[in-house]
């Protein structure tokens, strides 16, 4: 774990903070001798005093500091869609906010969850117990997010999920403590699959990643295809991760389906598309449909391979002047354009900080309520709203990957075909299994 907080800061806040800090007998405190303690006593009394006076002025921010913990895959398959770039987006939001809320400093911690639900859950538990973290951001692999949001609900802390795909995060796994910001499998299937079936792509062969996320996406796509009059002629569930897709591509070619749908993500999608291009899938008359593709995937594939692909995205850097301006700033710091997840992390952090500033509180329910009342209007969303189930509903975009000849630069890769209004894109509350909505 690479927690960036200094040990001293923790010790101070634990020893002197108010109500919810539990005194822990740490090995450190045992090492402090009586003599040192005597020397430190006047100092800590002084600090107590200054904290107390701050406490009077700012009664509702529990320990005089807003701490945001950023949890994401920093080194594995999902690193490039959020990872260190997402952390920088979060830091940009903190900087743009001025580095403090109503005079209280904002501190950012970060850790690598290595796509492991255990690691993620333990890290977040430590953050809440020992560091008084107020909000957990990032959250990429769906399995990690589901585990973490359970802990957030237990410990009454706020979380903003930006990277995960599973729509269950705000459906059967919804809690009053977390918000899902950027996208989920529901609009991916409905946006892309419906558009393709409407254009006449009515027979599908699915390549599905053989784990929870792939199965969920596969289910959503099958439903959409069948509802719109198409058929699923076959499917293969491939192991996660797979590097050689040639066998599955050959099976897809043999199926005679018009559309080869990819219900997978990250390197699996990239590998499948590369292989499909080598085997001349498109030349032979079949089309490919990638259901979850990020900007970094298209960049890795290259336009030669990816051209013509239709996909649904929650955001794109080249939508309007505002997105371009922000992305330019991001580009200067990170030498690449931001993905929708990185942009979402910036947007959601600002929205959170605004709510903290407006309410003058870091109490989860208060801040969550304020975030829900305030529409999201920034470079990421236009009149986005956070529903009772935690879903941030905003417009999605059906895009098509440009041909190399139409591209003006390295990152100029999408043509926006259609803006899908938020209300149409996301699962209607009427169909929700979320306890908060049914209740």
């Amino acid at each position: 774990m690479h927690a960036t907080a200094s040990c001293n800061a923790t010790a101070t806040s634990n020893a002197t903070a108010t109500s919810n800090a539990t005194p822990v007998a740490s090995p450190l405190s045992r090492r402090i001798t009586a003599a040192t303690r005597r020397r430190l006593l006047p100092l800590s009394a002084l600090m107590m005093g200054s904290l107390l006076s701050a406490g009077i002025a700012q009664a509702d921010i529990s320990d005089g500091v807003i701490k945001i913990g950023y949890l994401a895959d920093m080194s594995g398959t999902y690193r490039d869609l959020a990872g260190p770039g997402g952390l920088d987006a979060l830091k940009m939001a903190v900087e743009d906010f001025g580095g403090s809320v109503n005079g209280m400093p904002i501190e950012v911690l970060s850790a690598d969850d290595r796509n492991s639900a255990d690691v993620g859950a333990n890290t977040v538990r430590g953050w809440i117990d020992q560091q008084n973290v107020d909000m957990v951001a990032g959250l990429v692999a769906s399995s990690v997010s589901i585990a973490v949001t359970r802990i957030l609900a237990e410990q009454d802390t706020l979380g903003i999920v930006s990277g995960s795909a599973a729509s269950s995060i705000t459906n059967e796994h919804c809690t009053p403590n977390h918000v899902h910001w950027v996208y989920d499998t529901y609009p991916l299937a409905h946006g892309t699959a419906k558009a393709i079936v409407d254009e006449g792509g009515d027979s599908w062969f699915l390549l599905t990643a053989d784990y929870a996320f792939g199965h969920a996406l596969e289910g959503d796509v099958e439903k959409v295809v069948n509802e719109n009059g198409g058929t699923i002629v076959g499917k293969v569930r491939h192991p996660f991760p797979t590097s050689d897709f040639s066998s599955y591509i050959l099976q897809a070619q043999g199926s005679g389906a018009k559309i080869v749908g990819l219900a997978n993500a990250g390197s699996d999608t990239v590998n499948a598309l590369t292989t499909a291009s080598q085997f001349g899938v498109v030349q032979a008359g079949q089309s490919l449909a990638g259901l979850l593709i990020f900007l970094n995937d298209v960049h890795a594939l290259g336009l030669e391979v990816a051209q013509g692909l239709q996909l649904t995205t929650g955001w794109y850097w080249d939508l309007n002047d505002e997105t371009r301006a922000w992305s330019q700033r991001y580009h200067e710091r990170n030498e690449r354009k931001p993905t929708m997840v990185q942009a979402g992390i910036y947007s959601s952090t600002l929205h959170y900080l605004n709510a903290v500033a407006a309410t003058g509180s870091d109490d989860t329910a208060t801040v969550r309520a304020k975030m829900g009342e305030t529409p999201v209007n920034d470079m990421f969303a236009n009149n986005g709203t956070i529903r009772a189930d935690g879903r941030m509903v905003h417009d999605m975009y059906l895009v098509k990957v440009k041909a190399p000849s139409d591209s003006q630069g390295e990152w100029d890769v999408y043509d926006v075909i259609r803006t899908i209004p938020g209300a149409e894109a996301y699962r209607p509350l009427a169909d929700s299994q979320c306890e908060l909505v049914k209740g």
Partner: protein
Amino acid sequence: MTMIFGIPLMVLFGQLMLGLINGAFYALLSLGLAVIFGLLRIINFAHGAQYMLGAFAALLGAQYLGLNYWAALIVVPLVVGALGIVVERLLLRRIQHLDHLYGLLLTFGLALIFEGTLVNLFGVSGSSYPIPEALSGGFKLSFMFLPTYRAWVLVAALVVCFGVWFLIERTRLGAYLRAGTENPELVQAFGINVPLMVSLTYGLGVALAAFAGVLAAPLYPVSPTMGSSLLIVVFAVVVIGGMGSILGAILTGLAMGLIEGLTKVFYPEAANTVIFVVMVMVLMLRPAGLFGKEA
């Protein structure tokens, strides 16, 4: 159409062809491992990283130096092989008198360093390397569309595998090498520079990995993590074939490619595990591996 277990015969032929191509690839990688282990008794866990370095060197060479594919096929194995020799001279040599485990730990550590450095520099998504003009397109066979590049991979891998086997098993140099590992002091006494041979052998094994990396660059996205996923499979191949057996590595590589290919048709969910199932069975029945001599 003739069917076998509900699969059309034509589809099956296609899958066997692909299995063979993947098998040739496994053979090439496990060959390098087998050479290094067979002759130097080093369990080279950096093999995956060296394969990845080969692919990266081809990519960066093309981007910054204008190195074309054919040149890369020769230059990259030499450069990465030379890097291997440096590693052998500076690090592996110092621990050669210790247990195999130390070599494993050292090379594993090196693999993590190579991978981590490149992840920091380039991210994990990777980049694509174009298929050379002369090898683009494909053949329309009666049972499948065979991309020319894959056919080339099959031929190139088999030729190199055969060449290495011939070098080690059938030439005088190979005989020195084998003798040098059997009894270094005695061979040294005959006036043969054993430490130099050891360095060159490690360099050869690493160069084979890099060669496989260049072959793979146009097939898969070139990314820092491309080696680590393959390494485990390749190790399983070497264990099945018998640690250190060169012919064993080649034949097992091909066979495992075929078995994996068939699994992908009949039960794709198990495609990543089937090789390990075979490994467990082989270890139970013949602990030294199919072609291994020592238990």
